[in-house]
């Protein structure tokens, strides 16, 4: 910071703010007009692809193959919910429920197990605590690929390959480093007096955890919860390897239709849109926690 101000200092030869002339005012106005236009264009750039998906999902394959989705503005009569009714009739609902059955237990497990570990890391004394926590920090970015082959073999030996519990446990384990890291950093900020008072009263640790730490940690737990939920809901790789056709979530079910993209565009577009509805609702409802979790999670 010091170097920055020092290098900027030579510019300060004229004392006082320079008077702004009419010309510079006009330039300012023009500049802000240009910025507005650029921002509107950029916003459209980010919005249009998703709108495209939505419109495509509301038109038949034949219409989609014949003309671009933007013709909807002149031919709104071509819209239909046929793709969605076909999709629901085709058994896609079962993969929707598989996604729920994988995501909800994983999120609960990660929160519970990580909160316990985070409490131990934050408020208990034991040998090797700091080293162990550094290992957790290191595990934050281990690529999932490293575990695919070993765990597939292990699941095969145990006979749980292709089952929902197998997928859930894999997700839970790989969710833990981030979860422990996030919660430990939050728990450490709980005022010591609160915990010490409870300990002086002779409360057992599990009771302190349940009635003091967990309630105080709610904001961080909410952030973690939404993050973990979206992460598992949106996963494709783990599902591709560890789920079979009975336990497959939406991502895997849709992926299997990708080969004939053109002729399957009805299923793919409506399926993709259904799969992103839940995350979008969560995102808009809990965006504050989402942003907080993201900020806290990127190692500062």
């Amino acid at each position, binding site marked *: 910071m010091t170097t920055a101000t020092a290098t900027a200092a030579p510019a300060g030869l004229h004392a006082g703010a320079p008077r702004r002339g009419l010309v510079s005012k006009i330039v300012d106005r023009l500049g802000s007009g240009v910025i507005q236009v650029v921002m509107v264009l950029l916003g459209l750039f980010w919005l*249009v*692809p998703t709108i495209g998906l939505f419109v495509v999902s509301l038109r038949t394959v034949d219409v989609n193959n014949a003309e671009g989705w933007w013709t909807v503005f002149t031919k709104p009569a071509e819209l239909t919910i046929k793709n969605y009714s076909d999709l629901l009739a085709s058994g896609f609902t079962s993969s929707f429920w598989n996604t729920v059955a994988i995501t909800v237990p994983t999120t609960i497990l990660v929160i519970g197990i990580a909160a316990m570990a985070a409490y131990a890391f934050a408020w208990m004394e034991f040998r090797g605590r700091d080293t162990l926590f550094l290992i957790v920090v290191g595990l934050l970015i281990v690529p999932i690929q490293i575990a695919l082959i070993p765990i597939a073999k292990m699941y095969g030996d145990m006979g749980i390959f292709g089952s929902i519990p197998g997928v859930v446990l894999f997700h839970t384990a790989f969710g833990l480093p981030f979860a422990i890291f996030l919660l430990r950093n939050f728990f450490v900020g709980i005022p010591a007096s609160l915990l010490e008072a409870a300990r002086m009263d002779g409360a057992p640790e599990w009771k302190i955890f349940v009635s003091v730490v967990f309630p105080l940690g709610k904001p961080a737990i909410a952030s973690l919860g939404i993050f973990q939920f979206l992460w598992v809901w949106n996963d494709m*790789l783990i599902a591709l*390897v560890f789920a079979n056709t009975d336990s497959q979530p939406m991502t895997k079910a849709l992926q299997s239709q990708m080969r004939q993209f053109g002729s399957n565009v009805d299923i793919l*577009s409506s399926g*993709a*849109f259904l799969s992103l509805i839940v995350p979008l609702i969560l995102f808009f409802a809990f965006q504050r926690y989402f942003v907080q979790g*993201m900020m806290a999670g*990127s190692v500062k």
Partner: protein
Amino acid sequence: MTERLDGPAPAVPREEETSRGGASGPADTPSTKLRLGPSPAVAIAFLLPAALLLGVWVVYPIVYSLFRSLFDASGSGFVGLGNYATIFTDGSMLTTIRNNLIWVVVAPIVVTTLGLIFAVLTERIRWATAFKLIVFMPMAVSLMAAGVIFRLVYDEAPDRGVANAILTTVHDTFSSSQGYPEARPREGAQSAVAAQDGGVVTKQPAQAGQPVLIPIVGVKPATMPGNARPAKAVTGGGGLAGTVWFDFTPGGGGAPNQVDSGEKGLPGMTVEAVKDGKVAGTATTAEDGSFRFEGLPAGSYVVRLPQDNFKAAYNGLTWLGPTLITPAIIGAFVWVWAGFAMVLIAAGLAAIPRDALEAARIDGATEWQVFRRITIPLLSPVLLVVFVTMIINTLKVFDLVFIIAPSSVQPQANVVALEMWRVAFGGGNNQGLGSALAIFLLILVLPFMIMNIRRFRRENA
């Protein structure tokens, strides 16, 4: 909903407060805590579930993969480092590594730069929150859905894919060259022109003062430009001039090889004056099909419509073809991650003390100087976090490549994370090579792992 994306209240207490918590190293630990704290057995009980899961699902696989990578596909024959040698010698593997290199170099820079630009620009508009929500939204969407979204965007046909629709619209607005595929000259003894080398030439050389008539037939209604006006035979004026027109009278009537009323000129044609096999001058036809060579020395020239005029019109880019596939997928990646960069950097911007900026402005620094000399240095920690996070994400990129690249171009779009899956599960069934690729991926992220640990130790020392 408002304000929530504008630098949220910190969820995690600041590091300074952690020392009071007594958990940031033995030096600060209050002595009272040891006395009151639970026994190590309790701590172990709290850690056990996490340790078990991490040990079995994360740590053990690292060891097993390391071991397994030294064996062949079936797992029975020891091959030493043979699988690793394959990674660095096999031709398709090298393409894969090259692609990862492109990803790592391009994507983090683009995402961080865009995030910075967005963060700065949003400070200048009133609807910043709406803008942030829009740009940030793709973060919540699965990469699978993002892949489907961009398969649609990148559709090659300009009347289906929005990317090429925009490109062709922009191209046709700024470029005069107009394609007339399947159009041909009206030939025959009466005609003054003939087809040659895919283009059209006059049978006889022409001179200034003699209008050159070039009748064209077979123009498809779809390729007839909207700005075409009724053709006009050139009369008078200096220099070599003439008319290129669609020699067809709608509704019948009209004489061949003559400009009749109701016949339209063909605008945007490139016309060349050729002497002794060399192009002496070029002109472009106007909306009524007329052309005139300016500043051409007197003499007789063969007038030619080169082949380019008869090529199909511009149709945009083959986004999903072998050459553009990686940049196209990086585009989708940027769409997904720019919001992350923007929100983090915007929070960093909000934390910059306003008086530092004001002081520099009062001292007469320009906005650019303030940005370059004060804002950027103060932001550098945040920029680094975003940049490193993006590097890690690009190394692990899988879903987007798998979904966006059609199966025929997947070899050209391949990346290490995808190749690992293909080799081990997607039909390859070679778990030895798959393990080696997984270890290779781990080695690639290792420096960042060490960096994270170091930074954490430093901040909590």
